[in-house]
C-alpha cells in the first residue's frame, strides 16, 4: 500500500471530563497516531473506551486537555476562530445516529446546503439547488426527494444524506463515527461500499471509528484498538487479525460472532472480565485475561514493522 504523505498527525492527545464529586474521566488519555493521505485508519473499541470522544476532539468539537492535532502540518488547536472555520472545510464528520444527526426541522436541501451557506460556496439559490442535487446523486439518492424531511427516509437513506452533507464542502479528511452501527445488516454494506467508492473517486482520507471489528477490518488499511482511553494495539489490518498481540485485542477478536455454524461450534472464546463498574473506569482497571498491568505506566512499542503494542514502561 503506497500511500501519500502524512495528512493527519495526532500527538499525545488527551481529553478529560470533570464528573461529579471532583472525579475526572480520562476519556482520551494520551493517544498518538498519524494517517496518510488516501488512507483509512480504523479505530475500534467498546462503548466508553473514548473512541468517539477522540474523533470529536480531533475535529476540535471538544477542546483537548492536552496534545496536538496537525492537519497538513498545521496545529489546528492554535488556529484563530476565523482560520478554524476555514479549516473545517477540509475536515468533516459522519455521525453514528442517522436519526439524531439530521435537524428534524430542515428539509434535505437545507441540511446539505447549510455548509454551502456557512462557507458562502453557492452564489445563488439555483446554484445551491444544483449542487445539492449533484450531491444527492453522488450518494445514490433520488434528487426528487430533496424537499422532504429526514423522518421520511429510512435509516440507510438518512445516513447517505449525512454523507452528502459531509461531502458538500469538498473535504480532504472525514471522520466516520460509527457510521453503520445503527443500520440494518443489509444496509451496512451499501453504506460501506459507498464510502469506499467515494474514497476512490475523491481521494478522501478516513478515520473510521467503530466497535465492529469485522467491518473495520474490511474497510481499513490500518487498525488501532482503543481500550480505556488509550491505544493498546495498532497494526495493518491483516496483520492485526492474523497476529493479535495485546490480550484485549485477542478478547475482542474471539468475541465476534461469525455467520457460520461450523466455525462457531469450534470456537474458543477468551473471556474478558466484566467488573460490573459501568462506563467510568479507573486506570487501574486494565486487567485483561493474560495478566494485569498498569495502563497509566504503559507505552506503545513497535514489535515488528508497523505493529505497535502497549506494554508496561520499563524501569
Amino acid at each position, binding site marked *: 500500500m503506497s500511500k501519500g504523505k502524512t495528512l493527519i498527525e495526532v500527538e499525545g492527545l488527551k481529553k478529560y471530563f470533570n464528573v461529579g464529586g471532583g472525579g475526572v474521566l480520562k476519556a482520551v488519555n494520551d493517544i498518538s497516531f498519524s494517517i496518510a493521505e488516501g488512507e483509512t485508519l480504523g479505530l475500534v473499541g467498546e462503548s466508553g473506551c473514548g473512541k468517539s470522544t477522540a474523533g470529536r476532539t480531533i475535529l476540535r468539537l471538544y477542546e483537548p486537555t492536552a496534545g496536538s492535532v496537525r492537519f497538513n502540518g498545521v496545529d489546528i488547536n492554535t488556529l484563530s476562530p476565523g482560520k478554524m472555520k476555514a479549516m473545517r472545510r477540509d475536515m468533516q464528520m459522519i*455521525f453514528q445516529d442517522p436519526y439524531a444527526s439530521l435537524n428534524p426541522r430542515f428539509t434535505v436541501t437545507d441540511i446539505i446546503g*447549510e455548509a454551502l451557506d*456557512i462557507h458562502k460556496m453557492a452564489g445563488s439559490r439555483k446554484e445551491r439547488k444544483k449542487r445539492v442535487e449533484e450531491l444527492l446523486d453522488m450518494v445514490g439518492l433520488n434528487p426528487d426527494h430533496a424537499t422532504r424531511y429526514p423522518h421520511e427516509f429510512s435509516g440507510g437513506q438518512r445516513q447517505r444524506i449525512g454523507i452528502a452533507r459531509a461531502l458538500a464542502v469538498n473535504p480532504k479528511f472525514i471522520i466516520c463515527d460509527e457510521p453503520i452501527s445503527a443500520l440494518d445488516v443489509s444496509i451496512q454494506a451499501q453504506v460501506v461500499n459507498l464510502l469506499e467508492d467515494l474514497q476512490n473517486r475523491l481521494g478522501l482520507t478516513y478515520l473510521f471509528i467503530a466497535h465492529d471489528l469485522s467491518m473495520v477490518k474490511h474497510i481499513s488499511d490500518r487498525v488501532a484498538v482503543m481500550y480505556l482511553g488509550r491505544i493498546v494495539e495498532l497494526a495493518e489490518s491483516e496483520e492485526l487479525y492474523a497476529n493479535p498481540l495485546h490480550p484485549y485485542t485477542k478478547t475482542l477478536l474471539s468475541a465476534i460472532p461469525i455467520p457460520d455454524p461450523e466455525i462457531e461450534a469450534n470456537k474458543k472464546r477468551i473471556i474478558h472480565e466484566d467488573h460490573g463498574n459501568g462506563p467510568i473506569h479507573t486506570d487501574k482497571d486494565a486487567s485483561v485475561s493474560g495478566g494485569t498491568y498498569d495502563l497509566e505506566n504503559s507505552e506503545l512499542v513497535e514489535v515488528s514493522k508497523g505493529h505497535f503494542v502497549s506494554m508496561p514502561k520499563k524501569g
Partner: protein
Amino acid sequence: MEANQQIKVMPSPADLTADDFARIGADEKQAEIIQRESVSALKDAWQRLLSNKLAMTALFILIAIALMSIFGPLMSKFNYYSNDLLSGNMKPNSEHWFGTDDFGRDMFVRTWYGARISLVVGLVAALIDLCIGVVYGGIMGFFGGRVDTIMNKFSEILYAIPYLLVTILLLVVMEPSLVTIIIALTITGWINMSWIVRGEIIQLKNREFVLASRSMGAGSGRLLFRHLLPNALGPIIVTVTLSVPNAIFAEAFLSFLGLGVQAPVASLGSMINDALTGWLYYPWRMLFPAVLISLIMLSFNILGDGLRDALDPNLKN
C-alpha cells in the same frame, strides 16, 4: 446442493407462461421510492391538533370569546361606564341581556369589556414572558458554564421573592393601571419560560445535528436561531399557552383584591369583586364574569394540553 429428499413444489396459478419468468432484476429506483406523503413536523403537529376534538373545541371557544370581547360591546346600545342609578341591579331582561350592576351599568357590555381587558393582560404578559424568557434562557443554556451559573442564580433569587409582595410594592410606587399590572406580572413571570428554554437548549446542544453544524463551522447565531430554538418550539408554544391563563388569573386575583384596574374600567376580576357584596340577592352579577373567566382558563389549559400532545408525538403514538 443437498439431496433434495422430498421437495414439495409450490403450487402455481394456472396462467403462468415462460414470459412471466423473464428476468427483470432489481429496480433500484423502485426500491428507494418513498411512498408516504411529505409532511413537515409542524404540519404534522397541526394535523394532530386538528384531530383532537377537545382541543379544537377549546380553540373554538377561545376564538368566540375573543371575537365577542372585541365586537360584543358594539352589539348593545349601552356602554361600560355610564351610570344609571334608576336601573341598578336589574335582572337579565330584553334590554340588559346580562342585567345591570349596582350603578345601573349594563352587565353584558361590561362582561365582554372585562373579558377584553383580561385577554389583553393575559396575552401581553405571556408575550413579554416569551421574549424575555427565550432570550435569557437561550443565553443560559447555550453558553453554559459561569454565564449559566450566574444568570441561573439570579433568576432563582428573583423567583424566591413572593410575587404578591413584589406586585403590591410596585402598585404602591406606581399608579394602579393596566400597564402596572402587566409589569407586575412579568417581573417574575418570564422565569418559568427561561428555565424551560434553558432545559431544552442544554438537551439539544449536544445532539449530533448540532455537532454536525458546528463541525461545518457554524457560528453561535446560526446554531441558536436555526438549530436550537426551532427545535425547542414545541415546549415554548405549550408554555406560552399555559402562561396566558396564569396571567389572566393573576390579574383577576389582583383586581379582586382591589389592586387591579380601577373603576369604571372593568376586568373580570374586579367585576367579581364588585358582585361579592350582594351576591345572594344579585347572583347574575357574579355568574356571568365567573363563568366567562372559568371558560377562558379551562379552554387555554385544554388547548395547551392538546398542543403538548400534538407537538410531542413521543408522548402518545
